[in-house]
């Protein structure tokens, strides 16, 4: 049992106390961003300004007026919200649907959030202003199209366009911010204004960038003043010195370049807060911290300014602060993004821009911290390559075998190969980090809407088998394809499936492009643009294609379920002749009530058992999805649409609304997560799963892959268990695997945790590329995690 409990190794006392404070804090809604943002936009004089300037001024005003606090014992300061652990509301993004959920925040079953009556009233007061101004409504001009899109998205049966909640999903160029500070950016922009002849768009952008650069510089100084004032009142000399050190650092950064390691961490944390308030507070990722912080650490060590333990304490303080933010999702969105997850990725290890191994002392400090802290955020990733140091690999696999469930592992060779094939330069590819769940981007250079949309693939098969209608529906919602009886060959089944896929993915891309343009037009992101390479040069906002790299990710949800269903059709109808096509579809419509039929279908071979004849159907689905996506050309920022094979928690939601499948899965049951086999269908254990998954051509999966490998703690015990795990991971990667996360789960314990949430309040599980507290998941997700933990090697 000790595998799971946080107290595996003692933490430094300060960090332990801070963590306790943060974990014990009530998760709350913060109204400040919504209210200040609205007040700014209501002011008449602001309405005429260019959108990009409005964004910069509104954000600067939030940073200037939001309440700030320095909590006892902190070394790194800054507040995402007015609450110790809180989340903001973005009324102009998906804010209005969220706010309509307001009255239920306190009492809902999953992710309840504290909010006072007064706060609710003040939030309700801003709704009218945004009622017709939020993003999803702005995607379309015609009222009918608006209503259609908003209504579609509230149901989200075929797809969900996350981008209508903003884009984010960036790994900002913190290296540069730390080095030159906001003041350095202002100087650079002024120089560019002088030397080039910027057009009007660029002039507005530069103006906006300078406003927000000044805004974040002032934001830091507010903390400097607060710390100085608190120091003046502090009686305890040790605490006073601490506050004075904070004051000194916050006066320097982020306005100026960092002079010390502490400055560097503090500077990036202020930017981290500001970026989370600019657009969607999702997946703003510090990325490769061990790489860009290392020069500061080494210099301070050499100058005798810091010890290893002090550096570790600072990073612990930073790491804990990253858990002070939560997303405020409506219940609807919680279906897709369960687990109170902001997707702030910190990546360690891997090769540097020249291709040599980048592991350093900070890497090891981070590894210790992720093992000891085991908190929801940041989302820790570790990069691995053939020449990763032995010690690095041993520590990571040791942690994972003991049940840390973090970090998630990424393979340099496969990911760099994929990125260069997709158009990244070799150096930029080597400098990748994951953002969000599993999506690789180049640090400081990509503005990829990696979580642009998620797509329900099995529903296309349902319609393909039923003439373009969903089971039980009178009206056709898909393409016009023949009725079940007319599908006389496997080729005709494939043809119908592909027609449905083209139709619905076409719908998705049409909506997505409208949302892309709405983001560009109504919600430019000047701060993000300043911190993403290319935007200043191009004089274009990141939302308008200013960044170096501009992909959009569309997630292929449940390829294995779809592939298994197609295999079952081939086997049952066209090879064994057990049922006619019509008969099979009739059974499906009756939700496989007949046990004989259901068990027969369920017991057919499934993806994940290293059987070519079955696996090829899942490969077919992935391939068709990718080709269809490619056929739509470029997004409006000039980048390609790329496939992602991860599902966050959408496989559970999409499963709930999709009918029975020929794979023997009944209506409403969850789909498989990411690229994993269907729950309990991997009969031969993880090596066979890897053999199956390794058949995928990962160079075509531009938006990342999530493979969840589940183990019971028993099988990974001891050093042999750890070594076997290491062998498994390295072999999977050597053969082209991109990502793997290791879950060590005990089903009995999970069931106990489900029945009595108080039992293991801090139990962490990896959901889909990220960790979540088990208690933060929906009941259905909990059941799914338990179910998949039951079937193990």
């Amino acid at each position: 049992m000790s595998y799971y409990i946080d107290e595996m190794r003692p933490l430094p006392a300060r960090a332990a106390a801070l963590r306790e404070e943060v974990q014990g804090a009530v998760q709350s809604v913060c109204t400040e961003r919504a209210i200040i943002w609205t007040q700014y936009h209501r002011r008449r004089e602001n309405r005429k300004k260019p959108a990009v300037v409005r964004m910069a001024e509104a954000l600067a005003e939030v940073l200037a007026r939001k309440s700030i606090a320095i909590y006892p014992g902190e070394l790194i300061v800054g507040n995402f919200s007015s609450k110790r652990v809180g989340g903001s509301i973005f009324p102009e993004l998906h804010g209005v649907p969220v706010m309509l959920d307001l009255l239920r925040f306190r009492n809902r079953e999953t992710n309840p959030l504290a909010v006072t009556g007064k706060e609710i009233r003040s939030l309700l007061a801003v709704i009218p202003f945004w009622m017709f101004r939020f993003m999803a409504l702005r995607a379309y001009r015609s009222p009918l199209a608006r209503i259609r899109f908003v209504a579609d998205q509230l149901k989200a049966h075929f797809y969900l366009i996350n981008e209508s909640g903003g884009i984010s999903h960036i790994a900002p160029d913190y290296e540069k911010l730390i080095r030159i500070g906001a003041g350095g950016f202002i100087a650079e922009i002024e120089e560019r204004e002088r030397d080039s002849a910027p057009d009007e768009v660029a002039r507005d952008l530069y103006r906006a960038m300078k406003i927000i650069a000044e805004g974040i510089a002032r934001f830091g100084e507010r903390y400097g003043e607060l710390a100085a004032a608190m120091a003046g009142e502090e009686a305890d000399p040790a605490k006073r010195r601490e506050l004075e050190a904070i004051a000194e650092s916050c006066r320097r950064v982020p306005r100026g370049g960092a002079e010390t390691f502490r400055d560097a961490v503090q500077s990036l944390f202020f930017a981290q807060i500001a970026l989370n308030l600019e657009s969607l507070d999702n997946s703003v990722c510090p990325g490769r911290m061990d790489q860009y912080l290392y020069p500061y650490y080494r210099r301070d060590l050499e100058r005798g300014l810091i010890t290893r333990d002090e550096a570790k304490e600072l990073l612990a303080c930073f790491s804990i602060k990253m858990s002070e933010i939560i997303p405020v999702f409506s219940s609807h969105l919680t279906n897709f993004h369960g687990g109170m997850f902001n997707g702030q990725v910190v990546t360690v290890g891997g090769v540097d821009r020249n291709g040599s191994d980048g592991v350093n002392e900070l890497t090891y400090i981070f590894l210790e911290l992720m093992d000891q802290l085991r908190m929801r955020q940041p989302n820790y990733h570790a990069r691995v390559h053939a020449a990763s140091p032995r010690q690095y690999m041993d520590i990571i696999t040791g942690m994972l075998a003991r049940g840390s469930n973090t970090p998630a592992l990424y393979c340099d060779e496969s990911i760099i190969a994929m990125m260069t094939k997709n158009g990244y330069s070799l150096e930029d590819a080597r400098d990748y980090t994951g953002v969000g769940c599993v999506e690789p981007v180049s640090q400081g250079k990509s503005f990829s809407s990696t979580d642009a949309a998620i797509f329900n693939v099995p529903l296309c098969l349902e319609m393909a088998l039923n003439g373009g209608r969903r089971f039980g529906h009178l009206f056709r919602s898909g393409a016009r394809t023949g009725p079940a009886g007319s599908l006389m060959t496997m080729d005709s089944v494939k043809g119908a499936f592909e027609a449905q896929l083209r139709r619905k993915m076409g719908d998705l891309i049409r909506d997505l492009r409208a949302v892309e343009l709405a983001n560009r037009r109504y919600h430019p992101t000047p701060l993000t643009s300043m911190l993403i390479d290319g935007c200043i040069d191009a004089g274009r906002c990141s939302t308008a294609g200013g960044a170096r790299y501009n992909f959009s990710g569309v997630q292929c949800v449940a390829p294995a379920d779809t592939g298994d269903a197609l295999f079952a059709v081939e086997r049952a109808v066209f090879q064994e002749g057990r049922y006619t096509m019509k008969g099979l579809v009739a059974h499906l419509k009756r939700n496989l009530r007949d046990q004989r039929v259901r068990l027969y279908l369920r017991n057919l071979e499934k993806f994940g058992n290293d059987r070519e004849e079955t696996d090829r159907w899942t490969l077919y689905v992935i391939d068709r999805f990718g080709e269809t996506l490619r056929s739509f050309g470029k997004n409006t920022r000039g980048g390609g649409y790329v496939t992602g094979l991860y599902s966050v928690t959408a496989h559970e939601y999409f499963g709930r609304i999709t009918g029975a499948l020929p794979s023997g899965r009944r209506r409403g049951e969850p789909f498989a997560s990411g690229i994993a086999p269907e729950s309990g269908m991997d009969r031969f254990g993880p090596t066979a799963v890897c053999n199956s998954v390794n058949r995928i051509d990962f160079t075509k999966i531009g938006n990342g892959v999530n493979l969840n490998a589940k183990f019971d703690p028993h099988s990974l015990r001891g050093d042999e268990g750890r070594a076997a795990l290491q062998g498994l991971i390295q072999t999977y990667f050597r053969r082209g695997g991109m990502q793997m996360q290791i879950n060590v789960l005990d089903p009995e314990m999970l069931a106990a945790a489900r029945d009595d949430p108080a039992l293991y309040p801090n139990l962490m599980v990896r959901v889909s590329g990220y960790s979540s507290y088990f208690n933060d998941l929906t009941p259905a997700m909990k059941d799914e995690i338990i179910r998949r933990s039951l079937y193990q090697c």
Partner: protein
Amino acid sequence: MEPKAAPSLQERGIVFDVQQFSLHDGPGIRTTIFFKGCPLRCRWCQNPESHRYSMELSYSRDRCIRCNECVRVCPAGAVRDDECRFDMSRCTLCGSCAEACPARAVRVVGMEYSPEALMAEAGRDRDFFSGSGGGVTLSGGEPMGQHRFLAAFCPMLKAQGIHILLETCGHFEWSAMEGLLPFLDLVYFDLKHADDGAHRKWTGVGNGLILENLGRLSASGVPVQPRMPVIPGVNDGGENIAATAALLRGYGQGVIHLLPYHNLGEGKRRQLDSPSEYIALEPMQEGAMERVKNLFVEEGLDVVLYR
């Protein structure tokens, strides 16, 4: 009862399971092949599927949904719609019922493989073997019961550079082993009891041949690892441990692996038409393994405990 001899098979192996990602069954990530048939009848045996050399039918009443597909398809009229369902005296093991059964409640245990076909199964995880220092474990049943098949199969494994571990109860003709020796990388050798009479009582055969083979193997140059399943009330007494330790020292063996007894056999046994006498043993007491371990340590042996 007298165990049957291996049927004379010309390079056909009968295997009842191939398990990938076997950990703690030898070094690294391994694929374990379970050969069917065993010359011993250990009364605590957890794996009745392993007893007979021939294929047999296994029927699980719990999984059966009583749809009678099996009744419909059986060409031999061996299936009836009643509680017993299968009349083994008429069954020809044609497998039709297993194929038709939607619930997989009935299945044929044991599958015939040519060396090439088994190689294809065993080689699936080859990349993982080399990545983890693992390989293939030949287990059972008693793999030596199919030594002629092994004589064809092991060279194929070796040709692919796969590490081979043989698990044996030691009851085989030495001549069968001689030809295999060059191919084996490691032998796990199970000892049940040091006393010939007790051995006969609990396993159906004496231990003379077994000890003789342990001596020969120890001298053969192939690494041998003795192991002992610790069975409460059968072989965990001080006297047997002292005698076993003395034997091992005599053969120059300094390490013993101890395996705890798990009470798993009963559920499986009910599914097979299995006549062998089964004894319900007490489950392992807390700390019992530690106690046995300490006794061996006192005798000067190094001990590795399995869990």
